């Protein structure tokens, strides 16, 4: 879903660039509150994992391929703003070093695939897990649903940027959402698998400790500030 250069009008690129930069600045500020020293290397690790995972595109259907975005996964792992920071680093490296996503579209890409899934996904996940029993199935099911929904929402926002704020016809809107409804399944499978692995091995590294399944030892669940 990386928007390349030239797919948005200059005014849209400038506006999304300013808002995206503001969001990253706010994420830097809020990260001081969300992150402890123990998880510093895990931030770098998660960014590196998302970068690598995004290199692997798999066929989904109809001659289309897809890869993990990872914004919601990062938001659930670290909290909304550290999650935003993690994926922003990925999109920065991809745009500057690998021509994957345009430099002028960096702000739009951070908003679509970073801020929306990490922040929106985080709060949706909290709302969903707040309604469900504290079981492993409910926790991981919430990860899957939130991941799928975040991809569809991100594609809708990207469609606004390229079809209303760019030269593409409005017909791209339903096509984008339709295809990404399918792509979201891949996102849900990978994100849920990664969170399940962390939940099994190091649940203490996950944010949302008050939402962890009751099978996780009480001292870890009670670590929430």
């Amino acid at each position, binding site marked *: *879903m990386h928007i390349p250069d030239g797919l948005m009008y200059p005014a849209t690129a400038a506006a999304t660039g300013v808002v995206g930069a503001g969001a990253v600045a706010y994420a830097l500020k809020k990260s001081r509150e969300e992150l402890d020293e123990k998880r510093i290397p895990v931030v770098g690790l998660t960014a590196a994992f998302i970068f690598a995972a995004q290199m692997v595109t798999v066929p989904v259907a109809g001659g289309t391929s897809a890869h993990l975005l990872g914004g919601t996964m990062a938001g659930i792992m670290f909290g909304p703003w550290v999650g935003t920071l*993690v994926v922003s680093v990925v999109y920065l490296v991809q745009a500057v070093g690998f021509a994957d996503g345009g430099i002028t579209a960096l702000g739009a890409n951070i908003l679509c695939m970073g801020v929306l899934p990490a922040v929106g996904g985080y709060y949706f996940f909290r709302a969903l897990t707040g309604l469900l029993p504290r079981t492993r199935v409910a926790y991981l099911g919430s990860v899957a649903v939130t991941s799928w929904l975040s991809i569809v929402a991100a594609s809708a926002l990207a469609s606004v940027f390229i079809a209303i704020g760019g030269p593409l016809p409005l017909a791209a809107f339903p096509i984008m959402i339709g295809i990404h409804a399918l*792509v979201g399944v891949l996102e849900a499978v990978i994100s849920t698998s990664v969170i399940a692995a962390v939940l099994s091995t190091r649940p203490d590294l996950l944010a949302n400790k008050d939402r962890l399944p009751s099978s996780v030892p009480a001292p870890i669940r009670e670590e929430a500030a």
Partner: protein
Amino acid sequence: MTGSAGQRSIVPFVVVGLAIALLIGMVVSNFAASTPDALQRSIINSACRDAPDKEACLLEQEGKPVLEIAPSALLGNQVTWLSGLVGVLATFAIGAGLVVLLRLSGGLSSGTTGHRVE
């Protein structure tokens, strides 16, 4: 290692995780699909929606340079493993370096509690 997961060393977790990321970026990425991604497919399909010969239009659009977006665009497909190596290590260094800078500027908490619930 102690009984509490909160007191366990983070090093093994990070080393194993980084090895997995490098394996994916350097080896598995060589088998990535080359078909257009969902954004590219949406552009192609919307461009060919009303074309008289849809099949020919799709073939033509899939060859357009504007749609050639790939992680290996800078380094070339022949050295995907190098793209993976450089990208994974650079992303790790920048991600961790950024939060180290935050810590040096006096920001982060020193406890093990992690995220503050909002």
